[in-house]
C-alpha cells in the first residue's frame, strides 16, 4: 500500500472523563455568573481576560508543557477534552487559544531559555494573547511569496512590510511571525524565511482592523515600519522557518476546533425538532450525528497518535479537510431540515439567528489554517502522487 492510513480506535482514558466533569462544572459556573452565553457564539466577550486567567488558574493552559515553564505535564488527550468542552460550550477562548495551541509549543522548541522562563508561565496563567503572522497582502496561502523583511541591524532586526488576516492582533501581546531574511534560492523556494517573536508593544507596529461579513472583528492587517526585534527574539534557524512552521501542523489541523465551530446549530436543530421528529427530520439528525461522531473518532485517533509520539501528518490533514467541510456545510443542512420544525418550537428564533450567523461564518472555515486546496496537496504528497 502506498500510504497505509491509520485510525486506531483510541478511547479516552478514565482520567479524561474525570477532567471532562471538572471542565463542565467550571463552565456551568461561568455561564451562571454571566461570563458568557453558550447560545451566543457571535458575541464579543469583554470579560474574556478574566476568564482566561481563571482557565489558567485551573491548570488548563500549557497542559502538556514541562512544569519548569508553568506547564502541567499532562497528556494531549487531556488537553483534547478541555478544548472540546470549551468549544461546544462556546466559551470565549480566543484570547488564549492560539498561545496554548501553537505559540507556546513553538517557543518551547525554539526560544532561548530566558525567553521561555519569562513568557511560558504567563501563557499558562492566561495572561498573554498571541497572534500568528503568516499571510501577507497578496500572498495568502502561498507563504513562499511572503516579502515582509527582517533586516539585520545592531542588536537585532528591523521589520518592514505587512501581515494580514492576523487573528486577534488587535488584542495580542505577542506575535510569532515569519519574515524574509534572504531571498529564496533557485534550488529551494522555501529558503529565506525566519521565525521571530515580536512584542506587539514595540514602536513601529500599527494594527488595522478588518471587518468581517459576520459583523465580528477577529482579523487585522498589521503594518511594520522599522519595528525593532532584538536578536534573542529570533526563533530557531535563520532562513529555515519553513520546516519549523510545517512540522507543527499536525497539532493545528486535527483538533476538535476543526469540526466544532458551527456545532451549536445542530444542538438547536435537535431541540427545535423535539423528542419525536418526523422521519425526514430524524434521518437528517441521524446522518449529521453519524458524520460528527466519525470525525470526532478520527480526531481522537490522531490525538492518540500524537500522544504516542507519532507524526500523523496525512491523517491530520485529512481530519482538517473533512472536518472543516463538514462544519461549513452544517448550517446549510440544518437550514434544509428546519423545514420540518414545528412553527411553535420554543427556540425557533434562536435556531434562525444561529443558522444565519453560522452561514455567514462558514466560508472562512475551509480557508483558515491551511486551505482545502493546500491540504489536498499535502495528502496527495503523502499518497505518493507528487
Amino acid at each position: 500500500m502506498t500510504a497505509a492510513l491509520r485510525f486506531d480506535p483510541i478511547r479516552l482514558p478514565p482520567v479524561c472523563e474525570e477532567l471532562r466533569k471538572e471542565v463542565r462544572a467550571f463552565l456551568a459556573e461561568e455561564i451562571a455568573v454571566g461570563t458568557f452565553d453558550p447560545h451566543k457564539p457571535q458575541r464579543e466577550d469583554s470579560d474574556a481576560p478574566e476568564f482566561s486567567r481563571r482557565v489558567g488558574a485551573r491548570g488548563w493552559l500549557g497542559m502538556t508543557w514541562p512544569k519548569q515553564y508553568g506547564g502541567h505535564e499532562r497528556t494531549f488527550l487531556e488537553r483534547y477534552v478541555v478544548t472540546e468542552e470549551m468549544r461546544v460550550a462556546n466559551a470565549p477562548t480566543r484570547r488564549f487559544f492560539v498561545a496554548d495551541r501553537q505559540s507556546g509549543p513553538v517557543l518551547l522548541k525554539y526560544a532561548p531559555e530566558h525567553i521561555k522562563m519569562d513568557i511560558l508561565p504567563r501563557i499558562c496563567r492566561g495572561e498573554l494573547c498571541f497572534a500568528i503572522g503568516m499571510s501577507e497582502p497578496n500572498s495568502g496561502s502561498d507563504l513562499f511569496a511572503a516579502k515582509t523583511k527582517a533586516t539585520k541591524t545592531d542588536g537585532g532586526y528591523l521589520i518592514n512590510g505587512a501581515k494580514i488576516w492576523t487573528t486577534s492582533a488587535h488584542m495580542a501581546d505577542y506575535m510569532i511571525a515569519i519574515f524574509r531574511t534572504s531571498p529564496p534560492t533557485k534550488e529551494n523556494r522555501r529558503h529565506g524565511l525566519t521565525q521571530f517573536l515580536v512584542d506587539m508593544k514595540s514602536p513601529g507596529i500599527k494594527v488595522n482592523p478588518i471587518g468581517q461579513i459576520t459583523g465580528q472583528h477577529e482579523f487585522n492587517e498589521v503594518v511594520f515600519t522599522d519595528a525593532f526585534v532584538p536578536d534573542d527574539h529570533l526563533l530557531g534557524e535563520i532562513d529555515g522557518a519553513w520546516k519549523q512552521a510545517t512540522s507543527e501542523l499536525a497539532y493545528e489541523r486535527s483538533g476538535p476546533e476543526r469540526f466544532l465551530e458551527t456545532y451549536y446549530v445542530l444542538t438547536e436543530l435537535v431541540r427545535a425538532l423535539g423528542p419525536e421528529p418526523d422521519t425526514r427530520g430524524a434521518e437528517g439528525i441521524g446522518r449529521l450525528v453519524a458524520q460528527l461522531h466519525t470525525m470526532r473518532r478520527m480526531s481522537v485517533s490522531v490525538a492518540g497518535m500524537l500522544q504516542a509520539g507519532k507524526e500523523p501528518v496525512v491523517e491530520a490533514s485529512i481530519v482538517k479537510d473533512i472536518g472543516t467541510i463538514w462544519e461549513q456545510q452544517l448550517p446549510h443542512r440544518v437550514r434544509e431540515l428546519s423545514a420540518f420544525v414545528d412553527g411553535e418550537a420554543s427556540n425557533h428564533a434562536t435556531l434562525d439567528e444561529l443558522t444565519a450567523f453560522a452561514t455567514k461564518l462558514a466560508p472562512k472555515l475551509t480557508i483558515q489554517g491551511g486551505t482545502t486546496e493546500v491540504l489536498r496537496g499535502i495528502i496527495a504528497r503523502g499518497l505518493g502522487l507528487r
Partner: protein
Amino acid sequence: MTETDNIVVETAEKIFADLADAQSINSDKQGSWKAPLWQALSESGLPLSWVPEDCDGSGASLAEGFAVLNAAGRAGLAAPLAETMLAGWLLAQAKIASPEGAMTIAPVHPKDRITLGVDGTLTGRARGVPFAQDAQFIAVLAHSKEIVVVALVEAAACRIEHGIGLGGDPSDTVTFDGVTPLTFAVAPQGFDQTALLLMGAVARSLQIAGALETLLEISVGYANERVAFEKKIAKFQAVQHNLAKLAGETSAALAAATSAADTLANATSFDDAVMLEAAAAKIRCAEAAERGAAIAHQVHGAIGFTAEHILHRYSLRALGWRDDFGNESHWAVALGRMVAARGADDLWPLVASR
C-alpha cells in the same frame, strides 16, 4: 485496521492472497476457484471464528473476527465468510452449536420478519439473503409472540429464489413456508432483531472500509502509471485532489468501522453507545462507498468500466454491502430518533462519551 500481529488475520490474508486473487478470479468464468478457497477457509477454522470452542467453533475474539472481515473487504472476497461467521455468532447467542459447512443468516432486511409458530415451524420471507443458494444452513432469528428465538435450518428445507446482488454475489429470497428447524432456542434477554442488524451492520462496515482501502491503493497505483496529455495523470492537480478526497472517505470509513468494532467487542449489551457506533459506522461507510467508488472509477477512466478490470470487484461490492443489515437511511432514522428522544442537551455528552 489496528496494528496486529494477529495470527488469525495473517492466516486469512494468506488464504486470500493464495486462493482469492482478484485478477485470477475475475478471469475464471467457470468458478473453479470457489471449492479450493472454501476448503482452505474451512480447514483454517475462520468461518467459525465467532463460535466458542464449546460450541465446536474456533473461539476467536470478536475483535479478531472483525479484523478478518476488514481483510476480507480489502480482498473483495466473494465467499460466504462474513455470513458464516455471523450465522455462527447468532447461533452461539442461543448456545446452539454450529454445523460444518457454509451458512448464511436471515433476516437481513429490517422490514422482514420470520415467525415461529406454536407447531414449531418457521414462516416468513427474507429478501436479499447473501449466498443463500451456496449455503448448507441458515441461522434464523425468529419471533414467537413476544419471545425471540434463534433457529438452525437446513437451506434445502427452504424455498430459495436465486438472485444476484450489485457486487455479483448471490442475493436470494428465502421463503420459510412451514419449515421445521433442526433446532431452536430462546435468545438471551435483551437480544432482538435490532441487535442482529447492528452486528451485521458493523460487519458490513468493516468490509466496505476494506474495499475502500483497496480502491484507494489501486487508484493511486493506476494514477502513477497511466500517461495522458504527455504526463502521468498523478501529476494533474485535479486528479491529486480527487485521490485526496478518496483517502478522506477511506479514512472516515476505516475510523467509523474500527471504532464500532472496538465498541461491540467490548460491549456487554446492545445499549445506546452500541447504537451510536454501529449506526454511525453503517451510515458513514455507505456514504464513503458512494463517494469513494465514484472517484476510483473516475480516476481509472473507461478502462475501469470494463468487465476485465478488477476495479468493479471492490467498487460494486462496497456499494452492494450498503444494503445489507439496514441501509444508511434506515440507520439514520433510528439514530436520529434515539438522539431526539434523549434531547438536545444530551447530544454532546453522548458523542463525547466515546
